[in-house]
């Protein structure tokens, strides 16, 4: 488990980073579960709504939206494939993601056989640490 400024990043999964996305993906048998990481949750604040509308998706495509702080953000699929399951528990109560982001998967995707654009997917501790540090720096600059 990697910890940066109190935010945890389990190393049993990968992280999708394109265009500021903070999405974790974890393989389970032939599917990949997808959720929001601790940084996304910290920055978003309390999640009030979450929807997943896509079914068949290309990597990097918006497949849903979430709302926090009266701002609607898009939720992107990190990989191409078919969305085979949606976690209705977190759709109904997105606060579960605030409470426990890594046990609150949002949807499960059956990846297309030819995958992935690994450019935006991190799985090494040092890479994740560097990425989060850069992200924190951007937050400071924002403020």
């Amino acid at each position, binding site marked *: 488990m990697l910890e940066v400024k109190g935010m945890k990043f389990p190393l049993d999964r990968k992280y999708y980073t394109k265009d500021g996305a903070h999405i974790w993906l974890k393989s389970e048998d032939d599917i990949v579960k997808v959720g929001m990481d601790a940084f996304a949750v910290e920055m978003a604040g309390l999640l009030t709504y979450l929807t997943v509308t896509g079914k068949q998706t290309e990597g990097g495509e918006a497949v849903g939206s979430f709302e926090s*702080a009266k701002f*609607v953000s898009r939720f992107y699929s990190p990989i191409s494939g078919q969305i085979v399951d949606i976690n209705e528990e977190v759709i109904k109560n997105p606060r579960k993601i605030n409470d426990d982001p890594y046990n609150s998967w949002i949807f499960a995707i059956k990846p297309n056989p030819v995958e992935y654009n690994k450019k935006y997917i991190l799985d090494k501790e040092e890479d994740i640490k560097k990425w989060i540090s850069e992200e924190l720096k951007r*937050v400071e600059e924002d403020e």
Partner: protein
Amino acid sequence: MKVFNLGELQWKQTQLIYHTLANMNIECLLLHSTKQKYVCVGLHQDPRTEIDINYCKKNNIGIFRRETGGGIVLLDKNQLFFNIILKKSNPIVPRFPQNFFKKFLQPVIKTCNEFEIKTEFHPICDLVVNGKKISGNGGGELGECNVLVGNILLDFNYRQMTKVINSPKKLKESYYNLMKQNITTVKEELGYIPSKEKMYKVLTTKYLELLGPLEIGEVNEEINNQIDKLDKKYFSDEWMYQRGVKKNGYEIKIREGVFLFYKIIKTLNGNVEIICQTEENIIKETIFSGSILSLKDNVGKIRKKLIGMEYKKVDLDLLIYDLIKKYGGVTVA
């Protein structure tokens, strides 16, 4: 970057224009107002649950579901609308919504202050005068852009707001009173309403200071064609009634931190109705009614548990259910 100062528009145009410009990735400041009144809900809301649709139809009040965040609003000619549309990749755009609101609402604060209305930023995105909201805002990602959607209340029809909202009747009076306590308008602050042109002129100047030079924008044929396309999308039933989000209890937001929460619990002894009122996100008051004969002696215990609790940090719906089950002296159905 462009500025579109469009004056008074047909009500539908006031929504379609910023959706269109954002989808076309045109960075701009957009100033306008509506000729007719209408109600507008956020992306994640369902008009059927939020709005008294029959009342709106009878009174020729339009209905719109926008692609940005926030809740139900009643919009009319006594409000100034402003939108900021900026590409997410633009270096001046803060990455996180809280900072985005804070930065791009500064010109609105300065404008109000110039009219001697001492206005402050109230996180997350309200502007307040002595704690009362004078400007409501929301935002979202549209196309490749971040969009800020806001208004300044010149005057407000509080009574009509209670009518367009689809809330239980007994909540409407509390809602009215809370709005009066927590919302203000330019008219209430100054005793008069300056001309919209004058206010927009100041607002443009203040945005110029933040954004740099602004080129006058015109709604050309290409933009009009896109507006027509989006008109079809946003006024289809498929879009309007797409959400169908189920609610746990009923919540009305008056301003940041001030909510009314209403819940009916079915029990074998009849329904128990509960209203919780918050101040700065803390539950300050609870009102119990309905068939509470058995519950009566235990209401105090339940109140004690609820009052002082931080709203939003708890699943109030489930908590109330559990408290009534535990202390209510009734059998929850």
